[in-house]
């Protein structure tokens, strides 16, 4: 819309017509207080905190509902306004307990800040306050009625934002109260409860401490934590999350997961898992000493030195006697890119084997090959916020990639995007869809064929084949179309769907996978036939310098087949639980020497000869790549004594095998200038120099455990991994398009979707008390009794 110019507090401001005054002021650096206004949600005008004086208007006006107009003259802070806001606060405080000293929001509370700012210290009411006990709505959502200021943010967040509509407002006047969707009369314990997605977005939106988190309430104060920004370890969306950490006697405990500054790729959003399921890190069940199996079958705690020595010696011996091809390596979906890259490099260059794989949750090989030679055709997660039209084939973002679902709902709500959904099930996102096509059971392949022009596939493609024509026409009519693809589509079907999409000039693609770095694991070459960047093993290109065996290796299933046949001398499993995931018969591994790096005694770890206690993604640094190919920085938040990062362990094992560690991790390079910290007046110069060096990847990597040394190599060798170090360092996401070579021979499809939903997260999820509580709760178990601050 055309720009208008107006004056606020004597300052000339220009903004597009139709902008809300409160937003226009914010962009111009003028803050107007607001309780009920929440960007992106509908306007409520319930609190009157944002009142301003607009010339020629008879009364004070609410800046959150007024749109800017040409020539408008506005004052935002005058004695009259101050008085109005103070009176509003006094009314709000009339029924507020002012229990800031014990309130979770204390120190981070908008009401507290405003009370401080406007000095609304006294209340003119003599009536007793209308007290109500706090309510335990679900294991993760608690409600303190007296603190609520009835801003309706939570109600709108849950309804408009989440499309769940689990919160309402009941009664009237000073008795009005936010109510969850299970009425006391319908609940076995006669108390109100929530049946919902348990995302905690309502808590996040609450400007005060009325809605509090089951995980965090009464645990600590905001200023007593360190806040570390990193990436969620759960699904493939890769939300930025801020972990609140506190020192403990054996490390640093994570006490809170939240979306503190909303600066990430995920905007406002975090789901249940990102917000609460960090607690596996604090689990008592974690392994914290290396364990080596004794001849009698017992696992004996040993020193790190001993464990690495045994592991290194044994691997070397088996490689030298039975050959690298007799060794298998399985990596995880939650390793950093640097670890995944290092692991495959270790396997290929130190162990001398291409028997490398991971639990594949989407067919990225076909995806990138189908897009070989194309530029700008892969979508960033950011695109889901703004693309004018989106087609989702397969998948169920609401449950599998909740952040994606949030973005799509927002895109439809705020930008009137057109959403097309094709799925075998009636997934929840169909409620936002302009058209929903119910795909016939197992019909994705037929659908892809139909879309690609094979009319005969119609009868197997949709439950109602007559609906296909209209759906196809609508989709084809889009100029800019984002095509989101679920992991159901693989191999030839996926290729055909992409080929169809490529006929739409403005189409972009994304393939959804299941875990924090599923995409990274594939991109970094944890595959038997692909080197990093989908470089085929027989034609190693930039990786020629690594002297990799030229035969593709065994895939994950073949590795276990080889073990069962007695041909696998050793198996090295890093952060993965293939035994449970693929239902491997434990007997298959009886003749194999198994080394497992793990946090918990999983089904796989139980079979190991050496267990090395591992750090998780919240306890290490590096980078991860989400389903869309957006790379982000991971920073170390928690810490547990007795565990080590997978990166360090791989390097130490290589060292004990007698490998050249400098060849494995190119450290010790970079400039070694005088860093001159003590140069008095010139010291700032040195700091700036150091920043410049870091930004240009020239800072010295002094340790073999420095993931950045590997990142340098990734950047140097992996086709398409052109990243800007400064972007990464400043916490921004970067969209990468690995430049794959076109497909060669057909490959075996080993994709096994994890089947995780809102409250599960593979093996890791089993060790999260929060997820277990929520699962039990949603399955209908009575809640544990409420504990109040005073207990």
């Amino acid at each position, binding site marked *: 819309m055309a720009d208008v110019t107006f004056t606020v507090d004597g300052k000339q401001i220009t903004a597009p017509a139709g902008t809300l005054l409160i937003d226009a002021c914010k962009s111009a650096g003028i803050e107007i207080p607001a309780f009920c206004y929440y960007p992106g949600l509908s306007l409520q005008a319930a609190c009157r905190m944002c009142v301003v004086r607009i010339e020629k208007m008879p009364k004070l006006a609410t800046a959150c509902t007024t749109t800017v107009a040409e020539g408008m003259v506005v004052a935002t802070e005058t004695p009259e306004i101050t008085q109005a806001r103070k009176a509003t606060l006094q009314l709000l405080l009339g029924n507020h307990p002012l229990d800031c000293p014990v309130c979770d929001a204390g120190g981070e509370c908008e009401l507290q800040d405003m009370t401080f700012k406007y000095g609304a210290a006294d209340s003119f009411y003599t009536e007793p306050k209308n007290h109500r006990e706090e309510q335990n709505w679900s294991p993760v959502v608690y409600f303190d009625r007296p603190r609520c200021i009835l801003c309706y943010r939570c109600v709108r967040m849950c309804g408009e934002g989440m499309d769940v*509509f689990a919160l309402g407002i*009941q009664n*009237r006047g000073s008795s009005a109260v936010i*109510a969850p969707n299970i009425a006391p009369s319908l609940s076995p314990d006669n108390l109100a409860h929530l049946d919902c997605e348990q995302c905690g977005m309502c808590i996040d939106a609450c400007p005060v401490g009325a809605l509090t988190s089951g995980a965090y309430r009464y645990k600590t104060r905001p200023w007593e934590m360190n806040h570390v920004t990193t990436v969620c370890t759960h699904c493939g969306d890769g939300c930025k999350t801020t972990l609140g950490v506190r020192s403990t006697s054996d490390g640093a405990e994570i006490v809170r997961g939240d979306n503190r500054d909303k600066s990430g790729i995920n905007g406002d959003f975090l789901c249940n898992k990102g917000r609460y399921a960090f607690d596996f890190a604090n689990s008592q069940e974690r392994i914290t000493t290396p364990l080596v199996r004794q001849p009698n079958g017992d696992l004996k705690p040993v020193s790190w030195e001993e464990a690495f020595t045994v592991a290194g010696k044994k691997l070397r011996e088996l490689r030298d006697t039975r050959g690298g091809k007799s060794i298998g390596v399985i990596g995880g979906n939650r390793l950093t890119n640097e670890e995944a890259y290092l692991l495959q490099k270790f396997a290929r260059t130190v162990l001398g084997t291409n028997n490398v794989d991971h639990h594949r949750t989407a067919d990225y090989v076909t995806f990138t090959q189908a897009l070989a030679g194309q530029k700008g055709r892969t979508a960033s997660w950011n695109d889901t916020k703004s693309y004018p039209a989106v087609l989702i084939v397969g998948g169920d973002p609401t449950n599998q990639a909740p952040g994606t679902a949030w973005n799509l709902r927002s895109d439809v709500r705020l930008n009137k995007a057109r959403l097309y959904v094709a799925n075998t099930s009636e997934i929840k996102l169909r409620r936002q869809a302009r058209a929903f096509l119910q795909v016939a059971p197992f019909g994705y392949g037929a659908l892809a064929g139909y879309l690609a022009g094979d009319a005969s596939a119609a009868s197997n493609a949709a439950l109602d084949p007559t609906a296909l024509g209209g759906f196809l026409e609508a989709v084809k009519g889009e100029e800019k179309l984002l095509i989101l693809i679920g992991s159901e589509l693989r191999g030839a079907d996926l290729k055909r769907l992409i080929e169809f999409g490529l006929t739409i000039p403005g189409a972009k693609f994304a393939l959804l996978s299941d875990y924090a770095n599923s995409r990274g694991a594939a991109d970094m070459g944890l595959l038997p036939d692909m080197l990093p960047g989908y470089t085929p093993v027989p034609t190693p290109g930039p990786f020629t310098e690594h002297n990799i065996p030229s035969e593709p290796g065994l895939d994950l299933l073949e590795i276990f087949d080889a073990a069962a046949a007695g041909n696998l001398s050793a198996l090295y499993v890093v952060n993965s639980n293939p035994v449970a995931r693929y239902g491997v018969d434990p007997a298959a591994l009886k003749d194999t020497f198994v080394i497992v790096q793990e946090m918990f005694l999983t089904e796989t770890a139980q079979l190991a000869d050496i267990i090395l206690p591992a750090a998780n993604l919240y306890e290490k640094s590096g980078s991860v790549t989400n389903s869309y190919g957006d790379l982000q920085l991971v920073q170390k938040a928690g810490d547990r004594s007795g565990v080590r990062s997978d990166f360090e362990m791989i390097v130490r094992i290589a060292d004990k095998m007698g490998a050249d560690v400098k060849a494995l991790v190119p450290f010790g390079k970079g400039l070694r200038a005088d860093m001159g910290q003590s140069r008095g007046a010139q010291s700032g110069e040195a700091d700036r120099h150091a920043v410049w060096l870091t930004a240009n990847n020239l800072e010295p990597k002094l340790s073999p455990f420095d993931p950045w040394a590997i990142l340098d190599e990734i950047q140097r060798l992996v086709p398409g991994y052109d990243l800007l170090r400064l972007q990464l360092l400043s916490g921004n996401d970067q969209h990468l398009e690995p430049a794959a070579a076109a497909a060669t021979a057909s490959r075996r499809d080993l994709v096994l979707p994890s089947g995780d939903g809102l409250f599960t997260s593979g093996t890791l999820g089993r060790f999260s008390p929060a997820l277990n509580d929520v699962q039990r709760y949603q399955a209908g178990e009575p809640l544990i009794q409420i504990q109040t601050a005073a207990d």
Partner: protein
Amino acid sequence: MSTITNSIFTPETAARFDHLVTLYPVKRSALVPMLLYAQDEVGYVSDAVVAEIAQRLDLLELDVRNVLSYYSMLRTKPAGRYNVQVCTNISCMLRGGYEILDHCKHKLGIGHKEVTADGVFSLEEVECIGACCWAPAMQVNYDFHDNLTTVKVDEIIETYRAGKGKDVK
């Protein structure tokens, strides 16, 4: 023809509801009248009433409860057969409304929003019922009684107790 199978309402009420939803541009506009009619028939807005109305109007039960709880004339617990509502708003208060209320409490042996053990009477203190010119006033079900005195209240209560009043439910 009811669009709802196994409606909890009488065929007449069900038919009336079927018609009601057709009267407004938006279905949910029928919510408040529907709640009132349902309360008249069932005696209060039970969970079953909430569920059926939500179904009829394509609303969540939570939506129905949100509206329901806003209006003090809608109740979620059974009242007595005769619901005595005594006004204590300003005109009535000035003309002895509280005396009438206290008298009722004493006479019926129940307090605000309570029901007698035999279920015949319930009592409520309410805001203005629009009979200020003849204050103090009270309402029993849908019947108005005004210019009250304690003697008159006794007579009214006895009339109802004898079953002579109108039983709306």
